[in-house]
């Protein structure tokens, strides 16, 4: 190769991008050729001078730049934010539908209320659900009225009521006996 070929390699040699297979040959030529050595030095000097020019960054430039940044512009732009928001909405809909599906339908005046489920077992189970989950006061009153109606039908069937209901019935019975005793004593 002649000097022209080696001169063309100078930019890539300086930037560290010269093919590794050419570096040895280039180094040997530069050490032997004064003309090419001067070319290399001249090019390095030009780049060095251009790099060395420095302008002071105005002190307030970065501060005013940060103030101009749009705040929180990327929140919700990332897909996973959108996915979690969508998943939350879907979950809320599913839970809401599931709760409404299990709830017994109550309609009409309190005195005329009928429970959809005719089974005494399901009445007991629904009562528990109703008392603890659904806080709609009107529906609770309606349900109590319906239970009262059922009480007549299931008076001989104690498992329909909870233990608290049974205890309450027992106490009333005791009061009635005591008051009957009092009545007898007064005679």
């Amino acid at each position, binding site marked *: 190769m002649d000097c022209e070929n080696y001169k*063309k390699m100078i930019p890539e040699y300086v*930037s560290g*991008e010269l093919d590794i297979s050419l570096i040895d040959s280039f180094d040997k030529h530069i050490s032997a050729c004064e003309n090419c050595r001067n070319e290399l030095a001249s090019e390095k000097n030009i780049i060095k001078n251009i790099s*060395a*020019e420095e302008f002071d960054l105005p002190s307030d430039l*970065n501060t005013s730049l*940060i103030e101009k*940044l749009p705040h929180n512009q*990327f929140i919700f732009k*990332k897909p996973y934010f959108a996915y979690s928001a969508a998943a939350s909405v879907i979950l809320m809909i599913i839970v809401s539908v599931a709760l409404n599906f299990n709830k017994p339908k109550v309609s009409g005046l309190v005195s005329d209320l009928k429970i959809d489920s005719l089974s005494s077992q399901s009445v007991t189970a629904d009562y528990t659900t109703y008392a603890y989950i659904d806080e709609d006061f009107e529906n609770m009153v309606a349900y109590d009225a319906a239970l009262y109606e059922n009480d007549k039908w299931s008076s001989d069937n104690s498992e329909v009521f909870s233990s608290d209901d049974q205890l309450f019935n027992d106490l009333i019975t005791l009061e009635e006996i005591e008051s009957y005793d009092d009545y007898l004593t007064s005679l």
Partner: protein
Amino acid sequence: MEDGTELKDSELVKKYVSTGNSKYFSGLVEKYDKKLFNYIVKRIGDPEKAKDVYQTVWLKVASNLNGYKEENKFSNYLFFIATNACFDYLRELKKSNENIYRPVVRNGEEGEERDFIESLPSDTHDPERENESREEREMITSALNGLPDEQKDVILLRSNGLTFREIAEMKQISINSVLSRYRYGVDKIKYSIAGGK
């Protein structure tokens, strides 16, 4: 609490995109502010106008970080946007028929004009060497400013540490085209320096 400047560029980008916290963007700015500002001043030749272009570049970076790909170097992405912003500025300047290759700054209250090169800081305290160094730098800068835009840009990007391969990727042209622009530009600068002596 972690300091933004301790993180890698790609981590700073990720954290800024996911949180919107400007602390992480400041980390990026602090790493590249001087390099970027100097590139823009040299590219457009006007330190005052460079302030606006500098902020425009960073704001463009901030609003387009979703499109940044981690496999690319952030500095290349930054200079890609800077190159385009400078090009846009110079195009507008040409339209308004202002002199873009011999920029001047006003000096003091008297309105006396002087070459902006004279305002460059010096790196030596020896007055004689300082003068020689300044003269040489003036000649190089003057020759650089006289180059066609494409050649000047490649030389400036190279002097900011970008490799020819990175410049080629950024400009989406072949590495041979980049090298060709660079060689033509440097040869013209060498010729100017030799002719000036």
